[in-house]
């Protein structure tokens, strides 16, 4: 296989996988918390938070990328702060690509998880609380397992989105082979070059294969959870 992909392309595939996985996994806890707040919370900033979460969906990716650059770039306030205090740099690193991908996939993830949370019967949670479980434990032992299919769905959406994300990524962290050149960036680059279509097509197939594998896995996980809950 190695011979029909250049090292740079290999690196793009590997990087895309890494970026998408990290983006999905790291944003998952935040996604769950946000979904929880949106589904159950009754607080003043509810509408605002909801809007904020959807923002990356509404804005053209380029705008999102630009805003990220302004905020998390080297000159950005948050970027400077993180750099100085924690030594975390997003700009032009693969971490930045992951940040961009994570943010772009966030609304999808949150919505899926939120729908799942809203479908949980609060009566079961009440039952758990009468058995001595505090709110945290109720969440961990009852709510969380019951929304697992929703979490899987949210994660796979976010992962797929991350695999395809390009506009925000290239705007935020550019397109540096081996560092920030993800699969979609590479595809894009090929499409911009005379005669790059076949190479682009090859990469597209790889992207599809990877995403399909993830999709099948998630289907299988969801089904087996559902089957267990049905009791069979």
């Amino acid at each position, binding site marked *: 296989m190695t011979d029909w992909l250049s090292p740079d392309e290999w690196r793009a595939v590997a990087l895309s996988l890494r970026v998408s996985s990290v983006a999905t996994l790291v944003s998952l806890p935040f996604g769950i918390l946000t979904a929880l707040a949106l589904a159950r919370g009754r607080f003043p900033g509810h509408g605002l938070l909801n809007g904020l979460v959807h923002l990356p969906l509404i804005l053209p990716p380029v705008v999102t990328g630009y805003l990220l650059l302004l905020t998390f770039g080297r000159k950005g306030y948050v970027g400077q702060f993180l750099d100085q205090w924690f030594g975390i740099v997003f700009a032009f690193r693969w971490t930045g690509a992951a940040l961009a991908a994570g943010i772009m996939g966030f609304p999808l993830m949150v919505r899926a998880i939120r729908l799942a949370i809203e479908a949980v019967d609060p*009566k*079961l949670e*009440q*039952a*758990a*609380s*009468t*058995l*001595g*479980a*505090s*709110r945290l*434990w*109720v969440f961990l*032992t*009852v709510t969380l*397992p*019951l929304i697992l299919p929703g979490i899987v769905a949210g994660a796979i959406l976010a992962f797929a989105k991350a695999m395809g994300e390009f506009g925000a990524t290239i705007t935020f962290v550019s397109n540096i082979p081996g560092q920030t050149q993800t699969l979609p960036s590479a595809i894009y680059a090929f499409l911009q070059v005379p005669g790059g279509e076949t190479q682009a097509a090859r990469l597209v197939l790889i992207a599809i294969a990877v995403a399909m594998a993830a999709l099948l896995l998630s289907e299988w996980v969801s089904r087996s*959870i559902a089957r*267990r*809950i*049905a*009791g*069979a």
Partner: protein
Amino acid sequence: MTLSVTLGHSFGGFTLDVAFEAPPGVTVLFGRSGCGKTTVVNAVAGLLRPQRGRIMLDDQRLLDTNARVAVPPHRRRIGYVFQDARLFPHMTVRQNLSYGRWFARRGNGPDIGHIVDLLGIGPLLTRRPGLLSGGERQRVAIGRAILSNPRLLLMDEPLAALDEGRKAEILPYLERLRDGLGLPILYVSHSVAEVARLATTVILLDGGRVRAAGPAACVLSDPQAAPLFGLREAGAILTARVTAREADGLVRLDCQAGTLWLPDAPAAPGNSVRLRVLAQDVMLALTRPEEISALNVLAGTVQEVIPGAGHDALVRLRVGDDALLARITARSAGALALAPGRPVFAVLKSVAVAPESMGA
């Protein structure tokens, strides 16, 4: 442990306004469908935050809307068997049963194996609740609540979905919980038989208000309450003292009007007990019947003959200091010329005074 409850709450068309005390033992909430039983139980469990109210468990304040105190449900340590079982669908039956254990801080509650045997759910332990039958689900729910080692047990019609055989196995266990562990139980039931058997205290609810409340024996023989229980369950209370357990196993009890024999006694000789006698199980005779299988014959006088709605009549007797009710046909009342002051003999079959009619 005593639970004392004062609640005021109103939903759209329904207003609840109750106050009662539940002393140790089993307190049965009794009343028609929709009268507010589940609402009361939910408030005690902490699942409903009533508009006004105060709930004390001994001297611990579980709720006081004036003082803005409301202990959250998980700190109340109150086991709750829901009207709908509410098992956790993602856990096996065994995991459901042991769920409460994880959180029970003080150790050694009831033995899980014992409860499983009692409830006959051994073969289900590895199954998930999704496909259990209605009664199986309810049994698991009972086990789950008991095993969470609570200080107070709330049971909302726990046995409604169960067959008589299973009920007959579980009821004695609940009695043992009540008597042995001193675990107070707040119990919702529609079954007068269950009430008569288990209840220490009965709270009669009607349309969100307490209609009658007090020791089971008193409430059950309250003619006011009779319509709520149904006429067939009308009865009265006799006070008697256990005097001896005889050679053939029967227990001898003395009451002011004579001697009674019962197949079993709720107390050791020397103790006083209260017996519930259904009006339906009492036959009247003008002369003391001889050579009959009924062992228990008490002498008394007619106090009142209350004609019933159909062809029957309720006769109130005085036997010693106690009252006794007899339900007979109007024709018999006429044939025997029953009228206030007339001396009669009340015949009760000993086996009819079943153990489940005795309040301790």
